[in-house]
């Protein structure tokens, strides 16, 4: 496989610089935007995520190369000849990210891996680095496989995925209010992504975009941030702990317990149904929470 540099490695010094600038802004505007233990948890989760990613990197690349041998079109890597393919690849990779991300919130198996990113009650640049350890185990790499099948070289796809990840760093902030209207219309922004991290019933399950917010607008998952309803961040059942192992594995533990105790015919449903689903209806999914919030009725047990 042709190799290209990993753009994320080159972006890391920029990440740290922006993090420190954001901390200084918080010092002037609102000190509660940062908390030392929360920041340490986020950054440790991010660091170990890199180790976990490196450990399975060869397997992911191997699978990409294997699928690529069945590609439909011959697409080269050289940017001068194939610039349009690079742009198309970036665009389609972002669509694949949207599909992955939406699934990551609607299928508990994928959510168990993704929840780590949402487990902070803060929303700052350190939250962006709070990344999964179990992405490979939860099979999230499947969502990019169609790109290799089309014919985009694995090196091109992984490079575009790296750029996508870098873009998503800067939107994890409260330091920026709204961007210009034209930008908010097309691109994912801090405002749109704050909504995505919200646990207010109004904001649940919205704005799954990576780079382009147009996917949410097209597929009906867009919700605008409201000035009269500040976003509360985290997960529906807040962790209440800074334990990094618990942050990384709590949903997997929950799945294991539920599958163990569930009647046989419901065991699989605890893995593939939406977070908060239960066979006896004793818990609340995000849809239930929205309904009951709108109706003002009590929720018996909050969704995980």
């Amino acid at each position, binding site marked *: 496989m042709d190799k290209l540099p990993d753009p994320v490695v080159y972006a890391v010094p920029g990440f740290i610089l922006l993090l*420190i600038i954001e901390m200084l802004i918080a010092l002037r505007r609102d000190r509660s935007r*940062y908390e*030392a233990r929360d920041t340490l948890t986020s950054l*440790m989760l991010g*660091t170990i995520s890199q180790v976990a990613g490196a450990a399975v990197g060869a397997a992911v690349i191997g699978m990409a190369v294997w699928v690529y041998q069945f590609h439909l079109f011959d697409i080269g890597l050289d940017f001068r000849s194939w610039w349009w393919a690079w742009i198309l690849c970036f665009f389609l990779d972002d669509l694949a990210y949207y599909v992955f991300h939406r699934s990551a919130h609607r299928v508990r198996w994928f959510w168990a891996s993704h929840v780590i990113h949402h487990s902070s*009650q803060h929303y700052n640049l350190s939250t962006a680095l709070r990344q999964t350890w179990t992405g490979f185990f939860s099979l999230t790499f499947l969502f990019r496989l169609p790109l290799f099948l089309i014919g985009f070289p694995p090196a091109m796809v992984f490079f575009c995925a790296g750029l996508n990840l870098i873009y998503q760093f800067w939107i994890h902030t409260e330091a920026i209010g709204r961007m210009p209207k034209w930008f908010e219309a097309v691109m994912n922004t801090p405002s749109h992504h704050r909504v995505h991290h919200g646990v207010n019933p109004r904001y649940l399950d919205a704005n799954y975009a990576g780079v382009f917010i147009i996917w949410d607008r097209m597929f009906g998952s867009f919700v605008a941030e409201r000035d009269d309803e500040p976003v509360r961040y*985290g997960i529906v059942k807040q962790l209440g702990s800074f334990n990094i192992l*618990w942050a990384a594995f709590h949903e997997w533990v929950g799945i294991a317990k539920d599958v163990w105790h569930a009647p046989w015919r419901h065991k699989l449903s605890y893995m593939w149904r939406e977070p908060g689903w239960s066979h006896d209806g004793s818990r609340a999914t995000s849809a239930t*929470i929205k309904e009951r919030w709108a109706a003002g*009725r009590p929720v018996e047990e909050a969704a995980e």
Partner: protein
Amino acid sequence: MNQAALIQLGISLIAVLFVAWLVKRIGLGADPRIADADHAIRLAEEAEAGFKGIEVARDRAGFAAIVRNAEGRMMLVRAHGNHFAARPVDAATVGRLDKEFLTLTSPERTFGAVTLQLGKEAGMWASRMRDLNCG
């Protein structure tokens, strides 16, 4: 893992510890307290959509509170970092009364135990917890 990767990991860990130290060193963070009963009710209602609190036992220092709804269900709200976290108080929650102090231990180990200084009300709320176990 090769040597370059190990060095990269070491540098990352140093950077992580430096940033976390810096957050504390420059004085970022907050000391969240539950200001009054209305605040406790709002936090419980935010934690569980549809929950309507009607009665509150607030820790004297404002670190935690128990909120009860009209059906007798209770929620424990406590400070967590700069924010708050809540859990339902049910039969699996262990309550221990010590004069004016009531300690609630969640079955969820990582959520831990919370001690509330409730004054003379402590006994009444402990009794309500016993009712949960009997009911």
